[in-house]
């Protein structure tokens, strides 16, 4: 029965799409019921895999149509769910479930909702199918569904011109990415005559790295870089994230670019495990570092809530890529942890942006202000998300960023390469800049003075707040219990990344694996423990302090009788205006950091010119990236 779980989990999502399209044509509640049931079932089925895969270390292999390998050739399509796949699978199902619940109310103001849910579920199912599959061409098929569904959802609010524009850009650039992946797949097939990932891994292990393989590899790295929105292929992402409905932006940052990251990890560390890794490391770390830096500096310059979040999404993916690029145990741990955290806090932040949009109808930072009084829960949840993404303890971003810093710095000590210190410094600075841009959002959306037109803004409905609360709670849990998260989620996944031989053995049979790996399958060691810093004891400290000071505050430290509300019409409760009469004056977000921008104006002007919105240039950037990766691989990888 366990064997059937992955395929049922995937197909339930697809069937949910079809059935909601069929029966939910007229009835709203029936459609919602179907969607809820499908996403919930998928989540439960994936969770049922948790015990056998993560805890007992099983790897599930499943041959479609019982086409088991014949004379050592994998003729059918196989699903292979190892710990890495399940790690991403859990991310996908949880995100989809919460996103679906959020959509119920959030989308209620749009028409054509039946179409929305169909495409939504296709997106969900395709990403789950992508991470569970063990077949190179099947990966392409799923990424194709994903791209089309993402384009459709980007343009869903088609009464806005920017949605259509963003979808067009995404379609062009995304299709180039898909084509690169397809071409890579085709070339791989020409070389190896098989499409099964495990078998390709095995064949690569003993093969020379011929130009054909390098060519295919470069194409696929380029393609997945587009899917993961890695600089300089990121240019379409901000438009798409900003134009899509927020529940979809959450999916974009939570699962769509995770699919790209998963593809990269699977290719670089499992399929091409026999490659000369140090040279790949440099490429990945380099790409990751510029990704996080450019992402965050662009975010500082934005004046739209969702665009800003989109650039942060890019920046955080840079962290993930940098960390996994180190390819040490520590680095991979940090990278996967950050991937998980990114899903949690960025999902939360996008949902908060959606809540603001739902209540006020705009996400322009220059128009908003003072919403904390009207939407206290959203403001609080936003602060949780903002602190988490900025890496303020005790939230989850702190733990994973800490792992990233430690990983990069340890790597520099190990290899005696000063370049990695530079990466550590950039990572730390990027973290502060992240904080800066969230301060800007906090100031210009939730605090300050409330503009007249939003006097009637209300807190969003409960069904929108529940997913936000769940995500916030998960953020806190992942920050407080890092050892548990690492033991149960990250560690198995990291070990799975490191044991390509095991991956082959499960899928193609032990005999085959022993034929290929004549020296025996190496069993990786997980030698990292969260030593040095024990966050639980730290949290106890913080808690004790909190209680102590709460007591102080209660026993008259703040003297509650003196705290008078602003209800009475006394002039002393007005904001200080140097003695002038009070008037509406809100410091909005547009130019909050001019001191920074003024000093770096050369850089910002250059970035402004690069993000010019011309699709031809964007396509050129993708192609150039692929060409450069290709050049790099051909010249530097031995």
């Amino acid at each position, binding site marked *: 029965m366990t064997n059937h779980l992955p395929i049922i989990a995937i197909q339930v999502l697809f069937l949910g799409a079809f059935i909601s*399209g069929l029966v939910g044509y007229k009835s709203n509640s029936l459609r919602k019921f179907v969607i809820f049931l499908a996403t919930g079932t998928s989540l439960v089925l994936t969770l049922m895999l948790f015990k056998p895969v993560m805890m007992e270390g099983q790897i599930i292999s499943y041959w479609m*149509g019982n*086409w088991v390998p*014949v*004379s050592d*050739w*994998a*003729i*059918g*399509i196989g699903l292979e769910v190892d710990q890495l796949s399940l790690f991403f699978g859990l991310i996908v199902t949880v995100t989809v479930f919460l996103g679906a619940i959020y959509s119920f109310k959030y989308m209620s103001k*749009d*028409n*054509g909702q039946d*179409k*929305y849910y*169909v*495409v939504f579920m*296709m997106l969900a*199912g*395709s990403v789950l*199918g992508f991470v569970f599959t063990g*077949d190179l*061409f*099947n990966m392409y*098929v*799923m990424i*194709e*569904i994903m791209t*089309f*569904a993402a384009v*459709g*959802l980007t*343009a*869903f*609010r*088609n*009464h806005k011109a920017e949605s*259509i524009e963003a*979808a067009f850009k995404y379609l062009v650039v995304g299709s180039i990415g898909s084509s690169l992946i397809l071409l890579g797949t085709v*070339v791989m097939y*020409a070389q*190896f*005559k*098989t*499409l099964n990932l495990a078998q390709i891994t095995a064949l690569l292990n003993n093969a020379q790295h*011929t*130009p*054909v393989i390098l*060519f295919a590899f*470069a194409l696929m790295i380029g393609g997945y870089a587009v899917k993961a929105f890695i600089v300089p292929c990121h240019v379409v992402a901000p438009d798409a994230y900003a134009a899509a409905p927020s529940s979809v932006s959450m999916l974009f940052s939570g699962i769509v670019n995770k699919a790209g990251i998963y593809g990269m990890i699977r290719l670089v560390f499992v399929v091409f495990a026999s490659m000369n890794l140090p040279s790949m490391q440099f490429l990945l770390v380099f790409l990751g570092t510029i990704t996080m830096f450019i992402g965050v500096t662009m975010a500082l310059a934005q004046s739209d809530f969702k665009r800003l979040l989109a650039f942060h999404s890019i920046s955080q993916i840079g962290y993930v890529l940098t960390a996994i690029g180190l390819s040490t145990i520590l680095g991979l741990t940090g990278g996967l942890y950050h991937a998980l955290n990114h899903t949690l806090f960025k999902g939360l932040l996008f949902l908060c942006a959606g809540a603001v949009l739902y209540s006020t109808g705009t996400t322009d930072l220059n128009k908003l202000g003072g919403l904390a009084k009207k939407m206290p829960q959203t403001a609080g949840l936003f602060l949780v998300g903002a602190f988490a993404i900025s890496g303020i303890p005790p939230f989850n971003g702190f733990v994973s960023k800490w792992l990233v810093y430690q990983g990069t710095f340890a790597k520099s000590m190990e290899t005696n390469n000063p370049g990695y210190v530079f990466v550590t410094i950039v990572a730390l600075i990027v973290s502060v800049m992240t904080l800066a841009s969230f301060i800007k959002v906090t100031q210009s959306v939730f605090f300050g003075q409330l503009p007249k037109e939003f006097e009637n803004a209300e807190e969003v409905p409960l069904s929108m707040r529940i997913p936000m609360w769940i995500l916030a709670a998960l953020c806190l849990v992942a920050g407080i219990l890092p050892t548990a998260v690492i033991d149960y989620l990250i560690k198995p996944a990291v070990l799975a990344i490191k044991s390509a031989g095991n991956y082959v053995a499960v899928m193609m049979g032990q005999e085959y694996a022993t034929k290929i790996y004549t020296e025996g399958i190496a069993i990786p060691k997980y030698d990292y423990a969260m030593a040095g810093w024990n966050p639980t004891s730290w949290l106890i400290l913080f808690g004790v302090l909190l209680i102590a000071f709460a007591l102080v505050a209660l026993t008259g430290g703040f003297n509650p009788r003196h705290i008078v509300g602003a209800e009475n019409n006394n002039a002393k409760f007005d904001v200080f205006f140097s003695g002038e009469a009070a008037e509406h004056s809100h410091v909005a977000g547009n130019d909050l950091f001019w001191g920074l921008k003024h000093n770096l104006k050369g850089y910002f002007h250059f970035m402004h010119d690069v993000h010019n919105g011309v699709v031809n*240039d964007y396509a*050129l950037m993708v*192609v*150039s990236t*692929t*060409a*450069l990766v*290709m*050049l790099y691989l*051909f010249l530097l990888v031995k």
Partner: protein
Amino acid sequence: MKKFMTFFSLTVILVTGLFVMKSMAVLPATYDGVAKILVDTTIERTRALNAVTAVVFDSRGYDTLGESFVLFTAISCSAAILRKGLKGR
């Protein structure tokens, strides 16, 4: 800059592509691997005379399922994008 990048990337891809083509030409010409097994055993396994259909719908039926979902998604997306939006179009 743009012009340079265009020519540069096209040159790189063209040159490496030609190089790869050349090295592909020396790969063994006979078809083997998965394809041979599939073609040899298609009829007793699937009872279908058309080997292509047999491959497409049986041994790689899951991919075809995915491909038909691609079509479905594309059509659903067109329906969603080209629908009458909130403020008319």
